[in-house]
């Protein structure tokens, strides 16, 4: 087979460089034919007539595909409801879904595409904090909004523009909403010595830091804190450490396949009988992955569960069953659903589809039709005030329908104020 060795003699080399050089010089000679100015702000969306276009970025392939279905379905469902009711300001809604492939770098690319090419009016979605951070500079530069649905570590100025950003709204719970309301219950029922196991990144570290702070105020203590690199298959040594730690509660913030692997091995080692497990990651989809025997009796806390019995949720469940029977609905799907409805109300209130209009109308808005109860978007830091539920996995559950029973609930938790420099967050 031929291989190029000296496939480039000097003459050809010079010719090629000259041609290349010529090409570089050419445009300056062709006066009046300058490159078209590519403005960075993107187009003005769909304008003030025609459909309202929303870009949704979901992890439809890659490591977090399992969450992606509920994520995009939640938004789509709300939009279908809005359209069935005649749209907003007399305009229909259009959703453009983009796949993040669970790669933050792809999010940067897709956020740009949605804004510049698809001319969407605003963005919703992204899944992990990394994905949100990847989209944030893009929306900031284009002055579009991002409605973010996922439970996350809370806002702190050092992670600007991913958080503390006037263009970003948080529809999911942060640790003071997701964890704090249930600490007293757990200490009372199972004891205050916590062993913390998390994936090795910001969300678990921050969640654990806040949990530890509150736990110690309540008289509890942390007897172990371990962070696991992603994609760790075996947990032998860690299980041993936990076994010897004398902990009451194993507090888990592992994610992805690691949480499944850990919990299955934890159960197989017979450790469930000695320790109480509390996870702040494993919503219905991940718990399904772990399976009934390895999860029974374990605690999970979120703002929403499929099994909570509010009137809103009963209606919501019916709709999901008929529209998306295959989707395991969860906290992020519901947050996407809420985000769409609240955005629609904001547009109506503002009377136009504009970043400033939606932003100022969303700030402070209360939405009582949320499946989990009543939700308020705090004006000050764009953090949703949410209900909080602590549930326990039933023995021998077979599906999300009978997966969890609620053991502790708070109707509305006022989250800690975000650690941002300039509050309230408002458009520049």
């Amino acid at each position: 087979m031929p291989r190029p060795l000296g496939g480039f003699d000097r003459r050809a080399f010079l010719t090629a460089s000259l041609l290349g050089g010529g090409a570089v010089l050419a445009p300056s000679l062709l006066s009046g034919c300058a490159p078209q100015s590519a403005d960075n702000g993107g187009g003005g969306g769909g304008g003030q007539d025609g459909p309202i276009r929303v870009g949704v970025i979901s992890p439809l392939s890659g490591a977090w595909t399992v969450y992606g279905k509920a994520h995009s379905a939640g938004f789509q469902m709300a939009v279908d409801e809005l359209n069935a009711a005649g749209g907003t300001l007399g305009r229909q809604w259009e959703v453009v879904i983009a796949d993040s492939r669970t790669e933050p770098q792809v999010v940067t690319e897709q956020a740009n595409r949605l804004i510049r090419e698809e001319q969407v009016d605003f963005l919703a979605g992204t899944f992990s904090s990394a994905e949100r951070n990847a989209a944030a500079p893009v929306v900031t530069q284009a002055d579009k909004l991002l409605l973010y649905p996922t439970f996350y570590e809370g806002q702190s100025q050092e992670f600007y523009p991913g958080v503390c950003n006037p263009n970003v709204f948080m529809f999911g719970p942060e640790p003071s909403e997701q964890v704090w309301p249930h600490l007293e219950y757990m200490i009372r029922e199972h004891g205050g010595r916590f062993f913390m196991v998390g994936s090795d990144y910001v969300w678990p570290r921050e969640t654990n830091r806040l949990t530890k702070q509150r736990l110690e105020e309540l008289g509890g203590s942390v007897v172990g804190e371990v962070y696991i690199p992603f994609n760790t298959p075996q947990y032998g040594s860690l299980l041993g450490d936990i076994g010897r730690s004398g902990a009451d509660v194993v507090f888990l913030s592992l994610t992805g396949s690691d949480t499944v692997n850990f919990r299955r091995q934890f159960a197989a080692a017979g450790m469930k009988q000695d320790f109480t497990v509390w996870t702040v990651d494993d919503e219905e989809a991940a718990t399904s992955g772990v399976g009934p025997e390895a999860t029974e009796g374990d605690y999970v806390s979120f703002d929403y569960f499929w099994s909570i019995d509010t009137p809103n949720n009963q209606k919501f469940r019916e709709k999901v069953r008929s529209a998306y029977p295959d989707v395991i609905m969860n906290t992020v799907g519901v947050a996407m659903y809420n985000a769409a409805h609240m955005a629609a109300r904001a547009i109506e209130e503002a009377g136009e589809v504009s970043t400033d209009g939606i932003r100022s109308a969303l700030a402070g808005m209360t939405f009582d039709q949320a499946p989990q109860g009543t939700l308020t978007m705090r004006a000050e830091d764009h953090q949703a005030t949410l209900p909080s539920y602590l549930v326990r996995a039933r023995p021998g559950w077979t599906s999300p329908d009978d997966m969890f029973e609620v053991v502790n609930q708070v109707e509305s938790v006022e989250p800690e104020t975000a650690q941002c420099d300039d509050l309230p967050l408002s458009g520049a």
Partner: protein
Amino acid sequence: MDTEVGTRPDGQEARPTRAGRLRALLSAENVIAVVLFVALFYVPYFLVGFPVYVLPQYMLFGVLALTLCLLWGFGGMVSFGQAAFFAIGAYALGVTLRDVGGPTAPWLGLLLALGLGVVLAAVIGWFLFSADVRDSYFVLVTLALSTITQVLANSESQLTGGFNGMFVERVTLPFGVVDVSLAGDLAAYYVIFAFTLLCYLLFRYIQWSAFGRVLVSIRENEDRSRALGYNTALYKTVAFAVSGGVAAVAGALYATDAGFVSPTLGGVLFSTSVVVWVAIGGRHYFIGALIGGIGISILSQTLNARIPEYWQLLLGLLFVVAVGFFRRGIVGTILELPGRMRSRRG
């Protein structure tokens, strides 16, 4: 003139070939390169918005493919760790901008990226090549390199921002009298276009140089080259260092252009994508690797939205075919088509 020497056989048959025919073949490669760069140059004249924003990033992926092409197509070393260098460069610029600042920080960052890429590759390369670690073993080590890079980038959040990633602003590069700001997409486009062209010419120069020829001889028969007096470990180390350095600078430019860096950029998944690009584009021609990197990125972007499952499957199948049965890759095959047709007629 040494034009008669160092020419390439055209086709499989053992027949002498005339220089004119070879020249035609040579120019096919150059013509494609010129067409590609002229086309890229004029893209902003015809398209606005997203393509102008995203193409520079794909060009940098193309440069990353070039660095692997040097190693694999010319040096016979497959690296599953190119993404690691790309990410290290990206973080180097990001950290410099964040922690040093000032008007010269962009240059410092690019320099740091280059330095880190070169030094890391040189150290790893010399460590392994001097003990004659090669082929599959080398692949495994580079695989470990990207694994470790991703794990550390995730874990060392003080430095890298961890899993949540690091923001990198669009830099302004002071060129003595003028400052070139990459803040506008158009400026970023042409700066990265120029960088890509420069890299392509650099790699073609390497190919043409004595170093490049010796590198190919090492791919063909390392023992022979060594027994002719070449310190082959040194040659391979230099090739690896050049490749690591260029990959790191490309990564730094990517960081400032995309505005965001996260650990997956250095991971195994991205590293293996680079191998796929180069295999399908054609590993024996730099232009093949470049087109592979840019073209497959464009296709991935468009097709992943439409047929995600089937596109990945198709890519996997294409890869198997390219590696096993179709080693010139797509561009290589097109380039060698005229020669093959002529030799069939002859």
